[in-house]
């Protein structure tokens, strides 16, 4: 199988879906000739033209609202928010309107759109080009939220998202774009939304993670395996629908849980995972439910050492695993 990067997987998925369905189109800042600031749409304008690969004015609220309206008409827009940090102007349409459209019309109108959002840090983005925003959408019934960590998952999940009749927030971690490479089959495939992936089998403890930090977790699990600590690593892949079964099964098996994500710890996705387990796997817990997440500062600062101080990394995960093992 060919080995590609996450950004290539995203681009392939968009291209394939646009070829498959003429109702699919891309709308966003610099998606046209520029091919997107991360080149996710590179070359698409040449194949599909400016009407299906549409450069938008610098106005995120309208990018989202226009995508909604087009979706009402039966199109399947893929709006892009250039950086997650600029998603705020869209939430009136995304959280306020899109998430309530199907429910608020009693099913008469649905919103088949996928908003692609490059997010996350570790790329010297500073306070306004590094933000994690997943929790806001995770906490919004009516939206689906996808957070792939590998090229294989990114492509398969994005294709499913485009075919889904609901508004999907598709979060692509910027640092994985070129850093993470992986095998992707030549042919057509999709990955259903709502199914977590056990990326490493283990028996002593469970790590639940997603996105960039998933890779640090795998490295850390490998490291501690030498010390006889046998870690299972669950990649949520989609936050909504949340695959509670896979998480609960794993924790019931191992009895210990470490949750790792880059987003701020307080009120993050990890809190829900912990709450779920503390309620529904209570009897199986052999230790406190631990979280290793981003610090409770706005987001990672620009200076190299400050950014490192914020980010969870392999070494920090190893420490957390050893601590939990020792409990």
């Amino acid at each position, binding site marked *: 199988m060919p080995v590609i990067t996450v950004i290539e997987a995203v681009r392939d998925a968009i291209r394939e879906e646009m070829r498959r369905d003429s109702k699919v189109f891309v709308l966003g800042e610099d998606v046209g000739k520029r091919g997107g600031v991360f080149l996710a749409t590179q070359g698409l304008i040449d194949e599909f033209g400016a009407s299906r690969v549409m450069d938008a004015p610098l106005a995120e609220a309208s990018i989202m609202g226009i995508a909604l309206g087009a979706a*009402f008409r039966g199109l399947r827009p893929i709006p892009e928010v250039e950086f997650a940090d600029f998603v705020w102007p869209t939430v009136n349409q995304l959280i306020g309107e899109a998430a309530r459209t199907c429910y608020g019309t009693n099913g008469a109108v649905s919103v088949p759109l996928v908003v692609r959002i490059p997010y996350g840090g570790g790329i010297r983005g500073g306070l306004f080009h590094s933000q994690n925003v997943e929790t806001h959408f995770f906490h919004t019934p009516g939206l689906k939220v996808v957070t792939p960590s590998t090229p294989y998952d990114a492509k398969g999940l994005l294709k499913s998202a485009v075919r889904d009749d609901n508004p999907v927030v598709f979060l692509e971690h910027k640092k994985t774009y070129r850093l993470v490479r992986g095998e992707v089959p030549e042919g057509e495939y999709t990955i259903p939304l709502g199914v977590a992936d056990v990326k490493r089998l283990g028996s002593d403890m469970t790590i639940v993670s997603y996105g960039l930090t998933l890779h640090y977790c795998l490295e850390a699990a490998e490291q501690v395996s030498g010390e006889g600590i046998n870690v299972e690593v669950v990649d949520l892949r989609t936050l909504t629908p949340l695959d509670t079964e896979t998480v609960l099964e794993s924790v019931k098996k191992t009895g210990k849980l470490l949750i790792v994500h880059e987003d701020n710890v307080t009120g993050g996705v990890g809190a829900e995972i912990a709450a779920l387990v503390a309620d529904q796997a209570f009897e199986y817990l052999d230790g406190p439910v631990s979280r290793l997440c981003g610090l409770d500062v706005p987001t990672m600062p620009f200076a190299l050492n400050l950014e490192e101080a914020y980010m969870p990394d392999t070494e920090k995960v190893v420490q957390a695993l050893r601590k939990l093992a020792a409990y």
Partner: protein
Amino acid sequence: MAQTKPRGTRQSGGKATATKRKETAKASGPLPGSLTSEDLVDIFTRMVLARTADERIWALNRQGKVPIAASSQGHEAAQLGSLLAAEKDGRCFLFPYYRDLALKMSAGLTPTQVMKSFMGKAGEPYSNARQFPLQGADLPNKIIQISNVVSAGLTQGAGYALGCKMLGDDTVVLVYFGDGGSSQGETHEAMNFAGIHHLPIIFVCENNRYAISVPQSQQMAIDDIYSRSASYGFPGFAVDGMDLIQCYEATREAINHARSEGPVLLEMKVERFMPHTTDDDDRRYRPAEEVEEARKLDPVLTMANLLIEQGLLDQQEVENIKARAQQAINEATDAADAADLPDASTINDMVYAP
């Protein structure tokens, strides 16, 4: 209209109508050829029905049977003039706002559907009573209004128009909003995008000079909202929103322009007869005389006078129309009152499309 410059004539047109306003409850004759006398009697009949429902709903709120309502009293000529033009065109899709009761009702709802809506009963046509009255979607009548979040429908309307253009149909979209809505950032963004892509869309502003209690002078430093179309490279103009014929004609021209060339901003200068909603008390901020003055321009009165002048109806027939409306709303009220609440077990349904 296609020939006129984006600003030029239309701005003076705006001023003209703005001054013509203050005179009497007379409508502008002669009647446009495109309207038959049947059209006029029919739209008047619908206007009377909507007004009757509107007044009843307000009364029912005071009786505790209707939690909340926004009245379209004073806006009927604007709403029904534009609706009539859209109906005659036959290829329009509407994104109204929460004050468009007369429009939504007249677009094809039964009085019972409307009363169920305000009482939050099963069979509510827009959302099966999940939302405020007449909010959600009425696809059979080609209407979507997802929310009452001011101006949220404008970018959606632009997107819908974009979609129609992409799919190559010749729909024209009409989005409705108030003077207050003109301040929202999304209003600017929607018009800017529509201008760039020459979308088939009409931005209909029902300007009643108040955003709840905030007068136009505290909302903007200009008199005429339509003039902002110049910022987006498309034409804008104002009409007397108390004059159904003017509103019909302007909308008809606007539809033709929108389909052939692109967006139009159409400001209809109207009067709000009632407080903002049933929750409001406008005496806190609005002089009673202002409302009295406004009521002299009552579009129901104006239309009745016009129809009688034109010899299309006599006074008795007008009374009969009003009596039949009362009768219809009485029956609808009883039916809605007796109707069931929606099935509570559906609470978790339709969060996601199947």
